């Protein structure tokens, strides 16, 4: 099976869908001739034409607004927002329109738009190239929110997102575009081809949206995470020598509560981890759900390991990033508590 990094896997997903379905189009800033600032759309315009892989003006609201119109007219637009930090000018179209169109028209109109956007820090991007705004979008009903942690999932989930008749916001953790990252910036970069999930079928396949995956079974504590943090959490569990059951959520909304419940009922302990700020972040929903679902199994409070409640500071990137040691510490703490 071919080996792919995340960028290649994402590119392959769009390539396949552009090929299979004439209604699939891509639109975004610098995605066409240039192939995208992270090169996720490299070669696609050449292959499918300027009418299907479209360079857009710098207007996120226009990109999403026009993508909705295209979706209503039968296309399946895949819109790229160059950085998740720049999704906010498109918020009104996402929140007021994309998420609600099916509901407000009782199903008569809908727009199957996929919004791809790179998120997360660790690339020296400072406060405007490092954000993880997924929490905001999980609060919306009517859109699905997905964040893959490896090439195999990225391709299967992106194809599923494009085929989904509901709008999907597809967050791509840019720190792991080129290799898994365990949170230690001082270690040499590891390429994807050392990772089992870089084996990616060249052809079409999908992974179900709404299904989490247990990436490492364990007995003592359940770790809920997604994106880059899946790798950090694995490293942290090793580091702390904790028998953690690590769940890669993959889809943040709708959430796979069943997988989580079964795990926490078994382990009795839970840590939720994300890079985004903590207060009212997605980890809050995880904690709230877990204690609702598994209260009587819990032996300790659910801990959250997250970015601090500050913007992402350029100079203190690694103090901000919830790395291996911070996660490990929480794992130890939650095991000590009872």
């Amino acid at each position, binding site marked *: 099976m071919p080996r792919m990094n995340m960028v290649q896997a994402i590119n392959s997903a769009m390539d396949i869908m552009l090929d299979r379905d004439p209604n699939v189009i891509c639109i975004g800033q610098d995605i066409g001739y240039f192939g995208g600032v992270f090169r996720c759309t490299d070669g696609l315009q050449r292959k499918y034409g300027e009418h299907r892989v*479209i360079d857009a003006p710098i207007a996120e609201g*226009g990109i999403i607004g026009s993508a*909705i119109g295209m979706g209503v007219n039968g296309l399946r637009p895949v819109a790229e927002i160059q950085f998740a930090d720049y999704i906010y000018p498109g918020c*009104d179209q996402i929140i*007021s329109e994309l998420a609600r169109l*099916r509901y407000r*028209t*009782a199903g008569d*109109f*809908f727009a199957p738009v996929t919004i791809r956007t790179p998120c997360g820090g660790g690339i020296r991007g400072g406060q405007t190239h490092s954000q993880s705004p997924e929490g905001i979008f999980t609060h919306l009903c009517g859109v699905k929110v997905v964040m893959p942690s490896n090439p195999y999932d990225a391709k299967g989930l992106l194809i599923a997102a494009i085929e989904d008749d509901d709008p999907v916001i597809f967050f791509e953790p840019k720190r792991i575009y080129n290799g898994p990252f365990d949170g230690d910036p001082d270690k040499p970069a590891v390429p994807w081809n050392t990772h089992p999930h870089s084996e990616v079928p060249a052809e079409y396949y999908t992974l179900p949206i709404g299904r989490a995956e247990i990436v490492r079974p364990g007995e003592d504590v359940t770790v809920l995470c997604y994106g880059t943090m899946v790798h950090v959490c694995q490293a942290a569990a090793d580091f702390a020598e904790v028998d953690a059951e690590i769940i890669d959520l993959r889809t943040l909304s709708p959430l796979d509560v069943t997988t989580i419940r079964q795990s926490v009922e078994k382990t009795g302990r839970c840590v939720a981890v994300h890079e985004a700020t903590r207060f009212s972040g997605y980890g809050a929903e995880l904690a709230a759900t877990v204690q609702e679902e598994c209260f009587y199994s819990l032996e300790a409070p659910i801990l959250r390991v997250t970015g601090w409640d500050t913007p992402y500071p350029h100079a203190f990137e690694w103090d901000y990033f919830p790395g291996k040691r911070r996660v490990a510490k929480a794992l130890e703490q939650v095991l000590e508590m009872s």
Partner: protein
Amino acid sequence: MTRTPRLHIPHPPARPGADPDFSYVTRVPAGSVPRPDPHTRLRDLPNELIYDIVRVLDDEGTAVGPWDPGLDPDELQFGLRHMLETRAFDDHMLRMHRQGKISFYMKSRGEEAVAVAAAMALKPSDMLFPSYRVQGLQIARGRSLVDLMNQCLSNSRDMCKGRQMPIMYHWKRGNIFSISGNLTTQYPQAVGWAMAAAIKGEDDIAAAWIGEGSSAEADFHHAMTFASVYRAPVILNIVNNQYAISTFQGTAGGEHRPFAARGPGYGIPGIRVDGNDFPAVYAVTQWAAERARSGTGPTLIELVTYRVDAHSTSDDPSRYRPKNEADAWPYGDPVERLKTHLIRFGQWSETRHAALVEELKAQVERDWAEACSYGTMTAPPFLDKNELFEDVYADMPPHLIAQKKQMRALEED
């Protein structure tokens, strides 16, 4: 030496108590604006399209000048009927709101030509992206009033299944998009729809309507930019009815230049038209449609009109404008003007008009009775409450299934 600057605040022409003053409204004789070939390049279009006003019906009710679309009496009567039907519907629904039968309403009195004439100038397969004040589009496309009433009643046959406030219609089969409570969002959506038509090589076009107040929203700029860059087959209409809610068009930026003047800066032709002049609205829409359909590009149309009634049933215009302002509107009433025109040419009469008004009134009442038979706010048949959880997603996810159960459990308690 510099003067001390002070913040400039635009002032409306008249406040309550003062005399109406429409001296700011450009007045040009009907027939005076040239009509260029619709394939003319922007740079070759005359400035009069923007700074004058395209008018066809003169004060005597004669259709004059190059923009006269030469409509048959049949077509004009069809237009008149649908304007009157719109008005009858509006009047009835306002009464129903006053009687507490519906929760909200917005009339379009004085602006009927804007919608009805445009709908007629477009093909039924063209996609319309309406604002909340162009109900005439629906009516001219032949929609049954019962359907519209069902929506306003949120009853068992409401096409929105009770999910939207009154007047937020949509009509899938009739190619009329859903009305949003959020202003201007339909503008870039219409452009995207049109882009998709172009991508697919289909020759249907899109048209969208916003109010002049709504042109200040970001989505106006998004729509203009995308329409320009991709030369989208779309018609972007600004209905300048002089008011947003309480603020006059100057607060939206209309003090210095017509809204139509926004077009050329983006590389898009702008045209200003007398929105109360039925043939003029028809002609200008037809012109823009021809441009769009032939791939020449988008057009921005400013329709100059006046909002005769309150903004909505939540509004009281006597707080911010002279009571008799509507009477002073220099462009008259669209229904009266078309009627005069038809009568002048022997194609209509006061008697036929009165009869039509009566007929429509009766029809509206019959329709209302029928709509009420599908349920009202207080009388069955009601929509099924469980519908509340449908259509959030294509398939209901587990958490909504659980919430639906929870709601039912509560009811059974």
